[in-house]
């Protein structure tokens, strides 16, 4: 969904695209996108919370998740977000090569997140826990799956920017680095709530 950040250029003079509050069109677009994403996650997390309220037994089921891998994932995503911020700063200082390096780190950590997620899924399948194994598992796979799709989308966007940045050829795309960073932070923000909701509301020691 990175094309929200598209900036329009045509043969005419470009009037000022800055809104009354200093918000550029692209940035406002991403904010509205995030706003609509919040409602999407409101539907998903809201349903999960409503179920959770009358299913105390999910505390037990939750402890079947792999907390260690979950924590590793939290840290991976945090770090990836940090490097994306560094990439943004680097672009603002017009150092595209440095920015490309940071973006590469971001992508690497994002891919690592997805791989850890894949390992987790495999372990759960091995334990015989599938999406159809009960509502808790349905929600677990749905929520992490949709979050994973957002990660994938963000990674594609960052990858496209990295291709240009490594050749010092960002040009008009410069503004999009910050926009992608904004989106990437939102993905991180969702994980900040998903992680405790799924992993930490558990009973007893992790298995």
């Amino acid at each position, binding site marked *: 969904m990175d094309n929200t950040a598209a900036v329009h250029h045509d043969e005419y003079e470009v009037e000022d695209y800055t*809104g009354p*509050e*200093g*918000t550029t069109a692209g940035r*406002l677009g991403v*904010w*509205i996108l*995030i*706003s*609509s994403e*919040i*409602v999407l996650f*409101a*539907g998903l*997390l*809201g349903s999960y*919370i*409503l*179920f959770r*309220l*009358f299913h105390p037994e999910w505390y037990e089921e939750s402890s079947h998740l792999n*907390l260690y891998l979950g*924590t590793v994932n*939290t*840290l991976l995503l*945090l*770090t990836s*977000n*940090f490097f994306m*911020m*560094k990439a*943004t*700063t680097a672009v*603002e200082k017009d150092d595209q090569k440095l920015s490309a390096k940071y973006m590469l780190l971001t992508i690497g950590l994002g891919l690592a997140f997805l791989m850890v997620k894949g390992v987790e899924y495999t372990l759960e399948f091995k334990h015989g826990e599938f999406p159809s194994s009960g509502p808790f598992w349905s929600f677990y796979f749905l929520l992490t799956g949709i979050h994973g799709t957002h990660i994938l989308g963000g990674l594609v966007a960052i990858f496209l920017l990295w291709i240009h940045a490594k050749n010092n050829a960002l040009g008009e795309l*410069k*503004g999009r680095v*910050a926009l992608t*960073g*904004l989106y990437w*932070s*939102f993905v*991180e*923000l969702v994980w*900040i*709530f998903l*992680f*405790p909701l799924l992993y*930490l*509301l*558990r009973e007893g*020691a992790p298995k």
Partner: protein
Amino acid sequence: MNLSTSKSNHELVYIALVILALVTVGSSFLHLPGNTGVYVIFALALSQAFLVALQYMGLKIEGFMVYALMIIPLILFAIFVFLCIPDIAHYPLHLNI
């Protein structure tokens, strides 16, 4: 291209986030009585969320419009969950017909 995010100290925020994340995980091992554990976990998660939103996403320098765009969906979230609780969360399942 005067972007907000460059005004934040990213390293400091990052360290704070890592510490908060680890504390959140650690607090879940304490087995606090009753719902206290849940409150602690979500207070910590909220503080992380505020850090990310204000510092990384640059919400701190945004204007009224963006704040409205963030707050209205959250209000809708609250309305949806709150009004569904008496209907969804209070009904036990009856399956033995």
